[in-house]
């Protein structure tokens, strides 16, 4: 009983703490940027893998649509929550600009991929793949640089 | 009359038969009650002891049903429990009493020599007639499990 109620309290605390709280230091901001880049990287690389699968005809359209849609939603959520973070000092401004731009590239790339998959347009899928691959590598460098 | 450390001395029936000496909390309390047909009646929610002045107390009844369980869940939880049940069954909530001479064996489950007392089936019967019987297939036996 006591365990259940404390679990409920813990859960609600986590849900509150999980949402992006205010960031007061540049180091804290870097950590948030690192987390956001990690999630974007995961989304972009998933997009690349799905594009490969689509081009080889290795999966059915409903699967591809759902899978791309899943990571596109993730990337959009990361992008909007990162955009609402206030950089504590101007020192963080370049990092903000970089991650923000890469977030935009990721969501765009995934949107193009989704459109291409749905239309069965393999040229569009190939273009989206190339863009996501490039974005992924850049995100990788951000992740390494903010560790 | 010392029975030593023999098997029937220890509170468990090695087969049918009643133990000579047993611990109530260990061997009786909170055990499943099954009636003569093997139908689950409830748990031994409490045990009643009574005595005549100057005599040893004797085991006078096994108590079951929410009326016996409620007081055991004392504290805040127990009080809530009692209020809740008071609302469900306003007609007084006396526990169901089972005289010890109706017990065939105590462990591992309390087996009775009679069918279940009717009071133990009030909620069960209500739910059956008002809900379960009305869903198609309610009377269907799960033959593979038999």
């Amino acid at each position, binding site marked *: 009983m006591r365990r259940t109620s404390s679990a409920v309290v813990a859960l609600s605390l986590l849900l509150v703490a999980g949402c992006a709280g205010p960031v007061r230091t540049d180091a804290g901001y870097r950590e948030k940027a690192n987390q956001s880049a990690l999630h974007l990287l995961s989304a972009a690389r998933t997009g690349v893998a799905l594009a490969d699968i689509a081009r080889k005809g290795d999966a059915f359209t409903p699967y591809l649509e759902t899978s791309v849609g899943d990571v596109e939603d993730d990337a959009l959520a990361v992008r909007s929550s990162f955009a609402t973070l206030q950089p504590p000092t101007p020192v963080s401004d370049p990092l903000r600009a970089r991650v923000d731009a890469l977030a935009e590239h990721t969501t765009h790339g995934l949107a193009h991929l989704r459109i291409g998959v749905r239309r069965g347009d393999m040229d569009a899928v190939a273009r989206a793949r190339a863009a996501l691959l490039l974005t992924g590598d850049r995100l990788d460098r951000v992740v390494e640089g903010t560790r | *009359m*010392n*029975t030593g*450390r023999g098997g029937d*001395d*220890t*509170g*468990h029936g090695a087969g049918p038969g*009643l*133990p*000579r*000496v*047993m*611990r*109530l*909390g*260990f*061997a*009786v*309390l909170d055990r499943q009650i099954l009636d003569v047909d093997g139908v689950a009646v409830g748990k031994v929610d*409490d*045990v*009643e*002891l*009574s*005595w*005549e*002045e100057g005599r*040893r*107390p*004797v*085991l*006078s009844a096994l*108590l079951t049903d929410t009326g*016996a369980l409620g*007081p*055991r869940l004392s504290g805040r939880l127990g009080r809530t429990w009692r209020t809740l049940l008071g609302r469900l069954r306003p007609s007084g909530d006396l526990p169901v009493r089972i005289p*010890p*001479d109706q017990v065939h064996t105590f462990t591992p489950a309390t087996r009775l020599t009679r069918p279940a007392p009717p009071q133990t089936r009030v909620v069960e019967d209500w739910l059956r007639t008002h809900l379960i019987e009305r869903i198609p297939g309610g009377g269907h036996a799960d033959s593979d499990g038999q």
Partner: protein
Amino acid sequence: MPTVTASSLLGREVVDRSGERVGAVHDIVVRRRDDGGYEMAGFVVGRSALAGRFGYGATLAPPTPLHGLLAWLRRHERYLPWEDVADIGEEVIRASVASADLTPAWRAEPR
């Protein structure tokens, strides 16, 4: 005819002749009479709620590596036969003997 429920006896405090605390009621021992009814034989009294609640001492043996631990937890366990009960009160059960005279094993009771 006075009645009492087993659950209200379990956990009740037990003191000896001089008022010194022996422990709390862990279990109630009953024995079968020739007429088939069960009568009270005595109380198992102990201090460790953990060991007492699980019911060690009857058919239940502690798992091999925990023998020592359980024996240690049960070191205060005593058997209080009905003959040595002076009074069953609302709060405490009073014994008519000194706690040092009580034996640990409930089964060693002469019957």
